[in-house]
């Protein structure tokens, strides 16, 4: 036997339980689990909150104790706030956000796609959209009220404007990301213009559109307080603003908690919607 043959039959490692598996050294997070760390962080933040309020390190006017906030939440849940039940406040806000999202999506998606396809649509619509969308909604809130009154219309219009831009821009981005080979492939398979749009363009743009929708929902929640700033009698944003006038910090905390919970639920729902509608995202 030669040396070379012997090396191939070198004694194998002991057949222990399981060999040490390895992977390429990652850069950045690379999908590492962060859930437990986040949970512990949340727990610690609440613990700090407890301690700070327990030892009165901050006056309760600025930072109410967790117990007070919980008690206030239950009180509002049972007795309502400012003449309306908690359910009415929440549903008023939800209705505004959902109505605005529906309007913004049904305008933003077709207009964004049109802007990606047509020179005139892009040329005409680009000017007003590029002008208004960097503006903070609070800046044009007074105009909404002057033009549309103090009812629901101005509130929904404000939210719609805030949500329209990200949806419209994402629909354009979706069209830009469409590879020309995919279009050519469809045309050489005999697609008509409409078939091309329905079978290729729209589904190709859908992942970007859904991302835009998710951003828009987030923008909607962050604009909600502004929308309910003036002449509202219902809504979570109204509740917060109203409570702040009476320095009812615990109510403000309850309102913030409710908005955070709903915003989180919406964001989670959008993620579910994405995994249902565009399961192929990132797998091409």
């Amino acid at each position: 036997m030669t040396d070379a043959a012997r090396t191939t039959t070198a004694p194998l490692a002991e057949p222990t339980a399981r060999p040490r598996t390895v992977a390429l050294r990652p850069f950045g997070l690379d999908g590492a689990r962060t859930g437990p760390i986040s949970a512990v962080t949340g727990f610690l933040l609440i613990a700090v909150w407890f301690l700070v309020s327990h030892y009165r390190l901050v006056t309760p006017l600025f930072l109410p104790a967790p117990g007070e906030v919980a008690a206030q939440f239950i009180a509002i849940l049972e007795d309502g706030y400012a003449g309306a039940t908690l359910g009415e406040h929440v549903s008023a806000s939800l209705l505004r956000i959902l109505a605005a999202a529906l309007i913004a999506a049904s305008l933003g998606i077709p207009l964004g796609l049109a802007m990606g396809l047509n020179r005139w649509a892009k040329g005409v619509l680009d000017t007003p959209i590029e002008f208004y969308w960097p503006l903070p909604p609070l800046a044009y809130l007074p105009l909404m009220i002057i033009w549309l009154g103090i009812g629901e219309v101005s509130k929904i219009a404000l939210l719609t404007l805030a949500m329209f831009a990200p949806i419209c821009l994402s629909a354009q981005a979706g069209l830009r990301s469409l590879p020309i080979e995919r279009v050519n492939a469809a045309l050489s398979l005999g697609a008509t213009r409409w078939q091309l749009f329905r079978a290729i363009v729209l589904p190709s743009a859908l992942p970007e559109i859904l991302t835009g929708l998710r951003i828009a929902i987030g923008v909607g929640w962050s604009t909600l307080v502004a929308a309910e700033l003036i002449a509202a009698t219902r809504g979570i944003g109204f509740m917060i603003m109203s409570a702040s006038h009476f320095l009812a910090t615990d109510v403000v905390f309850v309102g913030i908690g409710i908005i955070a919970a709903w915003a989180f639920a919406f964001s989670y729902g959008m993620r579910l919607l994405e995994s249902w509608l565009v399961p192929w995202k990132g797998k091409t």
Partner: protein
Amino acid sequence: MLRVQNASVFFPGRDGGVIHALDRASLDIDANSVVVALGASGCGKSTLLNAIAGFLPLSDGRITLDGQPVERPGADRGVVFQKDTLLPWKSVLDNVALGLDFAGLPLRERRDRAAELLRLVGLEGFAKSAPHELSGGMRQRVGIARALATDPKILLMDEPFGALDSLTREQMQELLIDVWARTGKRIFFITHSIEEALFLGTTVVVMSPRPGRIVARFDLDFVRRFAAERDVRAILSDPAFGDLHNRIRDLVHRPHHATVHRGETLQ
């Protein structure tokens, strides 16, 4: 017959100049033939294919398919791209059936036809898979099946195996010959591999860059021999194969001089 007559293409260049991408190319693709365009990058072979597919208008010249001028893309010319263009949201079966969907065939019918084509390319077990679950070679098989589904008059293949590893590539070449032998489709195939050109083409046109031009044309029978005998080694070890390989290599590497010096089969 697909006929390309004096096709020229100019692209806009920098500083107001023009790039002469294709210079008076003429080409006939008869029934049951595989015409392979071979050349280095920039020689205009993809430009020629894009023009035949109808993706690119000609600056000058004309292309006709069975007498009808080619002006736009259409289902009478099936295209297989180098990069796979499968739709990630559709199953393999529905990707193959896409052209039949556009043609308005009922669901049952198009699924039956697509399943038949998947058998032809050896993917019968993958009808329900998603494209991203397949390897590169398998995706190109789906691409071939999809292009065949609408029963085109010609199959246009733009370096379809260029991105595959060499082992998969050999399998795909044999598969393509099988498909060709069984369907009798005429094929226009682009490659920069001399061996692939010799192995697949009933006709090989050699192209040279700047301006893109057809400089030589060879009529071969290796592909028919392979279809009949299925003996790769006999073909690769044939002295004629090696000889042609060397001659074409010279043409590709020194195209301008070679055009002048070689008497045979030049255009």
